Structure formats: C-alpha cells, structure tokens
C-alpha cells in the first residue's frame, strides 16, 4: 500500500477551484517532484499535505492513517519553505532543535542530533549565530537542518532553491540528492524548474490548473509525454510542434506532430522533408541551436552538437528521426 495517498483531494479559494480532485500515491522513500507553471497549484497541494491549507474534499492518508483533518503539528511532517522561515530570534542551534525540544526529547539526544545534522550541513561553526548573521546559502541549510534533525515521516520542500544564485543552486541541488540517498526519507519537492525536477525526482508529477497532467519517471515524461502540455513543459528547448499536414508521411491521422530539437538535423534544402529560413543561431560551444521558421509562421529549433556555418536568412532543409516523432490528436492527447 502507498505510504502517502491523495484521494480525490479538492481545494477551493472562494470560487477558485485551485486543486481539482487530485489522486496520487507515493511510496515510502520515494522522491516526488511537483512541477508546473506558476499558479498551477503546486504550493497549494504541498500545503494541503502539510496541513497548512484546509482540504475541501477527498482524503489524505499517511502510513495507513487518515490525516485529512489532522492539524499540522500532529502530522509528523517537516517542511522547508521558499523563504526558509527560520525563527529570527533563535540561534541556528535553537532553530534546529526547536521541534525536538517541543517534543520533550532528552537534551543529550537533542544535542547529539543537532551536532550530527550541523556537521552534515557544514554548519558546526555557525550554531551560536542567529539567522541574520548567515548568508542565503547557510540559511537554506539551516532550514534543511531543522527538517532533518526530526526524522519526520515525509519531507516537504517548496521551491527551496529559488532564492539562491545559479551556482549555489546547482550545488545545493546535488546536496539535496545526496541527502535523500543517505536518509532514504519520503520527499515531496515543489519546483517550477524542470532541471530540478528531472535531476532529483524518482517520479515527477506535472500539474496544470489544479490537475495532474502526468506522473512518471523523468525519462518517461521526456520520452512519452501523454499530451501536448507535458511535451511542451518538459525539455529545454521545447519540443517542436507542427501541424500534421506539414509531415503527412509520419502524421498517421494526428492533428499535430512533435519532434524534439535533438532529433532534427539541418541539411541542404534540396529534397528535404521540411525546409525553413534561419532566424537565429545560438552557438553555446558544446551545442548549437538553430532557430528557423517553417512556411513563414511555424517556429522550430534544431539542436546539433557540431558547429554550423549557417547564417540568418539562409534557407535550410530539415531531416528528422521518424521513430522519435510524437503525435497528438486535436485535443492535444498523445496518440
């Protein structure tokens, strides 16, 4: 049986139906990532699991117990907030030990746990400081430390890296992955960053407008998007989409055809399946992105790992791997 189970959960903000009957089963020890565009309900869903938002319909079951109406304090979950939400009036040590002190854990044991967590997170030298005296990255680690000293049933993260600069974000992402491997704790992680989703998740949950669009392993989502939305959301640059009549040979009754940029190749215009005009060439060193327009209105991007001589305004042909073509019907569902 699933460790954490969301059964038809609903959330209303007044008239706004923010979460629309979501079903999800999370296994013990799994790292689940909620991903989706801003405003799709990721935080709301996470906060419903946390008990910080009232659940208006459906059931939430944790470890075989219905916790739909259980107050946050009694759910035994830990959360890392986007703003970190450290207690500004407490030292790092007190921040990390707060939950254990409330739970009346033996002081010697608290000390040991805090020291262990601090060591793991490189915070030993800062235990006596208050959050004000720490850098953004250090605060972030305190927030994680506060969560891990407790060994909760589930870790909840709401965009924990979005306030860090790019370099630190990459580094902390790796640390979170390591931490999860080490602790093996069930984790639900919210992000709008698909790189985080792809690299951290055992399974990714793609949300849109309060609905789950698809659940699957990162590569599953990449290789087999269930619909047009997921195909556009996962993958950078996005999957190219063209109306079926441009590619009758592979369309097979679909309304739209999708091909990832790396499955296309720029070739001579002569006799190619498609041809277009180059609009922009982005040379990134290891890869080259060729933006082009087909028939004057459909923008596509071709990604190649060799450099190109192509210039803006050149007319080029495009070849593609027919076995990697995605087909979508008029509703946007994958065929």
């Amino acid at each position, binding site marked *: 049986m699933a460790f954490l189970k969301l059964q038809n959960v609903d959330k209303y903000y007044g008239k706004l139906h923010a979460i629309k009957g979501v079903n999800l089963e999370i296994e013990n020890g799994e790292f689940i990532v909620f991903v989706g565009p801003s405003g799709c309900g990721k935080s709301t869903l996470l906060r419903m699991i*946390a008990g910080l938002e009232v659940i208006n319909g459906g059931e939430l079951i944790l470890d075989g117990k219905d916790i739909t109406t259980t*107050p946050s*304090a*009694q759910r035994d*979950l830990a*959360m890392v907030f986007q703003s970190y*939400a450290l*207690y500004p009036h407490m030292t790092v040590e007190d921040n990390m030990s*707060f939950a254990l002190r*409330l739970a009346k854990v033996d002081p010697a044991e608290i000390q040991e746990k805090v020291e262990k967590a601090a060591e793991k997170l490189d915070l030993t030298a800062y235990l006596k400081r208050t959050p004000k005296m720490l850098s953004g990255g250090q605060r972030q680690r305190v927030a994680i430390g506060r969560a891990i000293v407790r060994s909760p049933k589930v870790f909840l993260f709401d965009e924990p890296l979005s306030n860090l600069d790019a370099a630190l974000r990459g580094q902390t992402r790796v640390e979170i992955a390591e931490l999860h491997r080490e602790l093996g704790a069930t984790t639900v992680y919210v992000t709008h960053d698909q790189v985080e989703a792809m690299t951290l998740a055992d399974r990714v949950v793609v949300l849109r407008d309060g609905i789950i669009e698809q659940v699957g392993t990162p590569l599953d989502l990449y290789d087999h998007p269930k619909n047009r939305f997921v195909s556009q959301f996962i993958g950078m640059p996005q999957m190219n989409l063209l109306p079926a009549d441009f590619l009758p040979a592979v369309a097979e009754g679909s309304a739209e055809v999708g091909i990832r940029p790396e499955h296309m190749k720029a070739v001579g215009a002569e006799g190619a399946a498609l041809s277009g005009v180059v609009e922009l060439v982005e040379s990134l060193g290891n890869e080259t992105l060729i933006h082009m327009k087909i028939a004057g209105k459909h923008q596509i991007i071709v990604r190649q790992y060799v450099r190109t001589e192509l210039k803006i305004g050149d007319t080029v042909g495009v070849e593609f791997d027919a076995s990697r073509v995605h087909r979508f019907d008029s509703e946007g569902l994958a065929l």
Partner: protein
Amino acid sequence: MSTTTVKKPVRTGKYTWNGAMITRTVASYGVALLMFFPIFFMILTSFKTELQAIAVPSLWIFEPTLENYTEVQERSDYFSFAWNSVVTSVGSTILGLMIATPAAYSMAFNPTKQTKNILMWMLSTKMMPAVGALIPIYLLCQKLGLLDNVFALIIIFTLMNLPIMVWMLYTNFKEIPSEILEASRMDGATLWEEFRYVLLPLAMGGLASTGLLCLVLSWNEAFWVLNLTSANAGTLASLVASYSSPEGLFWSKLSAVSVLAIAPIVIFGWFSQKQLVQGLTFGAVK
C-alpha cells in the same frame, strides 16, 4: 562636460551635517520646546504662592515654595486617587491586551474578505464623541450598581482603547511573515507554544508599545472618570478637576495637583519612550 559644485557637508563628530538636516533639527527642537512650554510653566507655577501665580507680567525668578504640595496632600488623599489611577490603567491594559491580541492574531494571519472592513469599523467607533454614549452607559452603570466603581472604569477604559490596540497589534503582527508561524506548526507547536515561543518574542516590541499607549491613554482619561465616579473610584483626573471648581481658581494649587497627577506617567513614559515611539509610528520606523 558639465561642472557641478558639490557642497562638502560639514563633519562634526560621527554625524555628517548638511543644511537640510540643520534646519530640520532646529525646527524639531523649536516645536518640542513650544509643546513643552505649558508643562514647564505649570511646574514653575506649582512652586509659587497664589499671589505670585497671578502676577502680571509673569514672575520668572522667585523664591520657590512647597506649600501648595503640602496643602494638596492635606486637603485630599492623593494616594487613594493615585491608586485608583494605577488600578484602572493597569487593569484596562491587561484586559485590553488579552482581548486585542487574539483578535489581531486572527485578523493578521487568517484574514477574510471582511477583515479590512472590520478594522475600519472598529476605528470608526472612535470617531463618535464619547458624550454620545454617555447617557446609555451612565444608565447601564446605574442599573448594575457600578457607578463610582473601579471595575466599571476598567471595562470602559478597555473598550475605549480596544480599537487602537487591535489596530496597533494588527499592523505589528502583519510584519511577521506567516510562514514563520507555519514553520512552528510543522515543528509540532500547539497554538499556545506557537504564541509563547515564536509570536510573543517576535511581537514583543509591538505588544509593549501597545500596552504602554493604552496605559497612558487610560491614565489621562478624564471624561468617563468625571461622569461616572466621585470619591470612591475617582482617579487623579478627578482630583485635578476638583481643584478647578468650587471656591474659584487657585492657579498654583491647581498646578501642583496637576504636576502630581502627571508625574508618574511622565516618568514612566520617559523610561519607555523608545517603545512608545516605535508603536506610534506603526512600524514605519525600523
């Protein structure tokens, strides 16, 4: 190339002065002195004899006397009035904080669409002149046997100050990110623990300044005291008033009793001015 002459600011000690700052400093000292002058004059008068007090032009140099103070103490029991002032203002402050804190908490951290309206409505009750409510409140007190009763004053002072207290605490709580309180809930804190270990330390400044303001307002309140009390529950405000009526005005005795009435709260205010200013600027000054 444009040439701009930059006036070098004058450096004195650790501050850097410029023209605008000097003007502002002089102006604020001027206003402060102007506002302090009547109080200063009152203190001066309290040490004059009645004859010196009415002299025109005013005497600035004279031999100070304490006779007004001794006479005030002989004629009326200062300490019994002062005790009533302490009991009513401290009582109404504690009661007010006990009611306003949960109210402000719920409005700041669990707002609804009507929260702003409720706050406006609470404030609007302060726009009605107190005398408008005098007759019903007088009759109520009379029926309940609460005329000239300290307990009634505590209730009335509390109600009088509640709108301001809720507003001040609301604006103060608003500055505390609700995620910090949520974090404590995730850490397993009960409502009481959340209040005791997280909200209270973070809102201490706001709670203190709200309490202080309430204390000062209650201490200085005269209208309800004069209308609802006499010898029993009268506060220092009624003691002062008793010197201005029956046998005509006695300037120096009135001054002496006024000084006695405001002295405790002025001394108290002096030591707590930091909190008071912080609270009155509604968190605008960090």
